[in-house]
């Protein structure tokens, strides 16, 4: 029995390690192999699937959670695995100091529900600043793009320097991107370092969604009350702080099924099973929502036994529920009342961007500009895999609240006519996958000629660089009256806004500029 228990935990660890390395490779690898293999991992992430309204992925994960508990959180969520790594740091070795023991705590139910409510609201209202901030996959993605990828590139370059091979081009990420990525990862890592999976169980919207299902999960961690000797080893090991040894209930809504407790139990009292042993305390099984009402009694009982302090149990349970209820009611009410106003303000703020002559150009595969802006969670997968380096994280091009969305900078490079990589990779449905022929017709912008800047107009040079470079054959050099040389004329029916013309235009500022279309 001991053996099978350990193999569960070993399996979880192995899967998590493989998934995490694939994720690192997905963002940091400069070759093609790992991204090809690992790109499906980004597509099965729950939050991007929800953004893409990809019902199948979402429902499959719900069913898996209903069967086996929140295994998504412990094996497939990159941020979850990252938190496991951070929380493991001070707890290495066989004997963990009591200072680093975990302890049971009550769930922050109202905080979870309010966060989930805000996030769902902003998904529907399209406030991508909120959605990209709360999506665990995107938080990790921004870290991968802005920190891991440049670092790995520099390391490879040192190696290539020794090997006398061509150097890689390491794109330097934006300062805003680096700071946001580093700060969020530090905060998440620090909380995990101290308190384990607190972020997953009180803030993360994916965790909260899964917890609605996982509390009824068929396979779950179960404590056999006949065998339990109250040694509390499992409670001290539980990074989700969800093992309540007073009532012998594992809060499956918070349990991430890491199997750590199984291997620690000296008496084999804990097992991963579909049976429910603790039915000997039937009252506790009836509790569906441990925070409100009757749960206060549980809390009182727990405190009493844990601290040894003899408080009057009935007094606590009589006073607490009403108080908690009113407070919760007021908080939820305040949030519900404030949410539309916040949303409206955010929307107004998003549209306030500095006056620009042109619209920023999004990556290919965009069906409508609005949809792209609302759905993108700025994970940076497209940016990290653009072979031309034309995509970069935006600063204020789409508005300040939509910072870090991918934007094309045609002064750096241009978009290759036959390339569909970013659109194929996007997991959120902000960019839709394209075939090559679709890509050649997919318009993201329109070239616009400013004749007063064109060197043909001014100097009479027969330039035509834009016309020769245009892959769609959309620019023709036509003689014009009042001009010293032939002028480029853009055929709007052919131009797809790839930016090759803007890139090669020899005049500064550029005489031909690609503007985004609304």
């Amino acid at each position, binding site marked *: 029995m001991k053996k099978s228990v350990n193999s569960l935990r070993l399996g979880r660890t192995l899967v998590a390690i493989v998934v995490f390395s694939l994720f690192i490779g997905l963002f940091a690898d400069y070759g*093609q192999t790992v991204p*090809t293999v690992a790109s499906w991992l980004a597509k099965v992430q729950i939050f991007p699937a929800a953004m893409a309204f990809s019902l199948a992925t979402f429902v499959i994960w719900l069913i898996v959670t209903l069967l086996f508990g929140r295994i998504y959180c412990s094996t497939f969520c990159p941020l979850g695995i990252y938190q496991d790594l951070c929380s493991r740091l001070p707890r290495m070795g066989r004997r963990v100091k009591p200072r680093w023991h975990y302890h049971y705590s009550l769930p922050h139910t109202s905080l979870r529900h309010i966060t989930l409510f805000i996030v769902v609201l902003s998904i529907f209202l399209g406030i991508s600043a909120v959605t990209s901030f709360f999506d665990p996959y995107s938080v990790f993605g921004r870290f991968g793009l802005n920190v891991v990828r440049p670092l790995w590139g520099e390391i490879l370059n040192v190696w290539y320097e020794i090997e006398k091979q*061509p*150097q890689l*081009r390491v794109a330097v990420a934006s300062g805003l991107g680096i700071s946001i990525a580093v700060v969020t990862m530090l905060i998440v890592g620090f909380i995990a370092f101290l308190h384990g999976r607190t972020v997953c169980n009180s803030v993360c919207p994916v965790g909260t969604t899964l917890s609605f299902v996982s509390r009824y999960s068929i396979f779950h961690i179960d404590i056999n009350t006949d065998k339990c000797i109250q040694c509390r080893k499992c409670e001290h090991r539980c990074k989700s702080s969800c093992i309540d040894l007073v009532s012998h209930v594992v809060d499956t809504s918070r349990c991430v099924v890491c199997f750590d407790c199984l291997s620690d139990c000296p008496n084999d009292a804990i097992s991963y099973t579909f049976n429910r042993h603790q039915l000997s305390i039937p009252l506790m099984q009836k509790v569906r929502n441990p925070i409100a009402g009757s749960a206060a009694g549980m809390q009182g009982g727990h405190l009493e036994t844990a601290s040894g302090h003899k408080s009057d149990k009935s007094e606590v349970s009589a006073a607490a529920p009403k108080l908690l209820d009113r407070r919760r009611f007021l908080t939820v009410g305040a949030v519900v009342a404030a949410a539309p106003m916040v949303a409206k303000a955010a929307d107004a703020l998003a549209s306030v961007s500095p006056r620009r002559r042109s619209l920023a150009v999004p990556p290919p595969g965009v069906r409508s500009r609005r949809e792209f802006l609302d759905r993108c969670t700025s994970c940076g997968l497209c940016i990290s895999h653009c*072979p*031309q380096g034309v995509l970069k994280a935006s600063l204020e091009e789409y508005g300040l609240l939509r910072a870090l969305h991918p934007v094309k900078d045609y002064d750096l*490079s241009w978009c*290759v*006519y*036959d*390339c*569909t*990589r970013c659109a*194929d990779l996007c997991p959120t449905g902000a960019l839709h996958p394209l075939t*090559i022929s679709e890509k*050649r017709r997919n318009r993201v912008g329109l070239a616009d000629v400013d004749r007063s800047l064109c*060197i043909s107009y001014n100097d009479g*040079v*027969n*330039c*035509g*660089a834009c016309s*020769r*470079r245009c*892959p*769609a*054959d959309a620019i023709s050099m036509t003689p014009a009256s009042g001009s010293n040389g032939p002028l480029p004329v853009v055929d709007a029916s052919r131009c797809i806004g790839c930016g090759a013309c803007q890139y*090669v235009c*020899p005049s500064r500022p550029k005489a031909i500029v690609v503007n985004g279309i609304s």
Partner: protein
Amino acid sequence: MNRRQWLGRVGGIAFGSMAFTSCGVRPEALAEVDNVSPRVADAYEPISQIDCVACDNCMPCPYGINIPDNLIFVDQARYRGYLPGEIDDPDFKSKADIFFDRFCNSIPDSQQAQHCINCGVCLPMCPDHIDIPRRMAQITALTDLIRNLRCLEK
């Protein structure tokens, strides 16, 4: 995607790109040439010997191209054996990869041949009567083709 391309792609993913070459299937990268946009594919022609001696008479180029560097790079690539020839050559892809990497590494973006606007200022300067704008166009066509090929392979 036709059967040959499919085989090539599957072979490339599963066993490495050389897996199906012995079965009469072209390596996947060459199968992809059919997919490159015609304007890019047709513009390419193998580059013949240039024989630039880097006398620098053509410089400075008004548009910032480092003409001798570009021309000499191509000649050296031929000399060292990584200048891509005909598209149908079996080693086109491998040569193209080396060529492109070294080209981008040795010549900065702003000094590459793609910025030539065919103004002809350099033409009378060259003592060897090299048709510099045509050479620049050839180099641009080659790099563009390689760029498109690289983007196509997944």
